[in-house]
């Protein structure tokens, strides 16, 4: 069995634009789920609203496509009411960090046994490219025509501070690493948060000098700084370059978790 068996074949091809990284992230997540050996009957995918949140509709398991930002709250209900189910949440940066920020930090605080995969494309893709809470400073979007003036969220730092058991960040370039990270997240009891930076050629790349999909993926590759290297730089007292972001396993701990099957 491969991850391809988890797709609703009658619904493909999906609605994502050409070159959108979301499909890659779904592949990696499903590959990890497939390796866990879980049955389709006892796995549930939950999502909110946005490009990323269309993902559960393409997966053969029971799936809940809910209201904007509330995916983690719905998933909390599913998981607590039936702890036998494996619940995975697909979400995006706007869904998770803006409208759903409160549910996100409280999900981390409760440390409820969910795996949250956030496809962070740093923009509101589905509504046409408005600035999101993770749009980097200076980046252009349809609501920040002179460059984003606000500082972005670091979602992983937020999850760590709020108490998630497992936190890691990868990009759509690091498919194998991402697959492993999701698998570790699925294995970890408690709240697992995996942030996957993805390219959005239609809404983000077009305005921010990534005319080709590959250019953006190459940017993500070149600007990701491995956790080990970042630790080394910090130990040596050297600064971490401002345009780099740390990728890798950022937190793994064993706080008491909620909703774990007894």
């Amino acid at each position, binding site marked *: 069995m491969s991850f391809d068996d988890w797709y*609703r074949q009658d*619904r493909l091809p999906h609605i994502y634009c050409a070159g959108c990284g979301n499909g890659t992230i779904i592949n990696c997540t499903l590959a990890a789920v497939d390796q866990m050996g879980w049955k*389709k*009957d*006892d796995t*549930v995918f*939950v999502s909110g609203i946005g490009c990323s949140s*269309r993902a*559960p*509709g393409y997966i*053969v*398991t*029971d*799936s*809940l*496509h*809910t*209201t904007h930002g*509330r995916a983690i*709250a*719905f*998933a*909390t*209900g*599913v*998981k*607590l*009411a*039936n702890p*036998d*189910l494996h619940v995975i949440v697909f979400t995006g940066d706007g869904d998770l960090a803006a409208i759903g920020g*409160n*549910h996100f930090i*409280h999900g981390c605080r409760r440390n409820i046994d969910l795996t949250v995969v956030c496809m962070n494309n740093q923009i509101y893709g589905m509504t046409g490219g408005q600035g999101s809470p993770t749009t980097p400073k200076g980046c252009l979007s349809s609501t920040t025509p002179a460059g984003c003036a606000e500082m972005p969220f670091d979602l992983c730092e937020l999850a760590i501070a709020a108490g998630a058991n497992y936190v890691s960040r990868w990009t759509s370039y690091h498919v194998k690493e991402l697959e492993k990270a999701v698998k570790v997240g699925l294995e970890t009891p408690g709240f697992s948060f995996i942030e996957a930076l993805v390219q959005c050629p239609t809404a983000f790349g077009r305005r921010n000098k990534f005319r080709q999909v590959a250019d953006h993926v190459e940017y993500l590759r070149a600007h990701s700084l491995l956790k080990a290297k970042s630790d080394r730089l910090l130990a040596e007292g050297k600064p971490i370059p401002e345009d780099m972001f740390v990728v890798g396993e950022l937190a793994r701990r064993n706080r008491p978790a909620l909703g774990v099957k007894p």
Partner: protein
Amino acid sequence: MTRIEFWQGNTACAEGALAAGCNFFGGYPITPSTEVAEIMAAKMPKKGGVFIQMEDEIAGIASIIGASWTGARSMTATSGPGFSLMMENIGYAAMTETPCMIVNVQRGGPSTGQPTMGAQGDMMQVRFGSQGDYAIIALCPANVQEMYELTARAFNLADQYRVPVFLMADEIVGHMREKIIIPDSMPQIPRRPLVKGTLPFKAGADLVPGFPQFGKGYGVHVTGLTHDERGYPAATNPQLHEALVRRLVDKIENARHAIADFDIINPDAEQVFIAYGAPVRTVQQVMHDHPDKNIGFLRLRTVWPFPEFALREFKNVKRFLMPELNLGQMAREVERHVRVPVVSIQKLGGELTTPTELVAALEAPL
């Protein structure tokens, strides 16, 4: 064995829910509904259910919708401001046909208003609060006994019609202590499961599709987008959208005779009171004090879908009088259905309509 208790309305609501097999409560504390959550927190875990205090009312209703899809009988309790927050997800529950039970112990509004005072200001919001056309069921208890019984019935209605069902109590009933006779058991009508191999959102003659519970191998996709009978999004199909929304409304409206629960007293009277919730008590007092006056009374326990056929039972009626703790929200609905005058007896501020006020309205010239 039946037993007798002296309970607060909110206690009766929580106990009624437990008697009806409620096994998931997700909520957020808000005056004057907090007691429901407190009792649930104490008793639910002992019964093997789940109590969770969510971060806000939005998450509260989201969690009970999620729980409902795993087969749980789920409920939340709130009041005005929390109810307003819930609106989007109430629409979601209606669109996805999720059975769930929402208690609204109404308080004075708008906004924060009067947290500790009763009102009936959410009667239109409960019906039309979320965007788009949909239909729900709303029940109104007038005493502690009904708090218990209607709560239990609400779960059955929710499961039977796959719709959010509301218990529209008010602070007066919620915080009132009264004698209550607790029956041995409450009837439980389980959800009809989906027949394997049929489409998850294809309904039969009753317009209510079978329930594809999560974890049972249905592989159902549930979405708040306009969806076809397979559950797949089809948001740009005009015919499909119309058929879906009409079915969502018709499944409740067509069943209003079966859902309706009301008492008719003195159907031959010329002057007829219509009341629901706490003002029922004032009308009862007036009828008790004035047995000489031939007063008719339509006492509603189901307010939505509105049982308009009950109004036609009063053949000689010259005037309907409708005491409400709002500015005539349901009186407007009654006016839609009758040709005689409807006098709206309005009261705001948190106190119950007095018998004197009702008698004055009764004695006013026709």
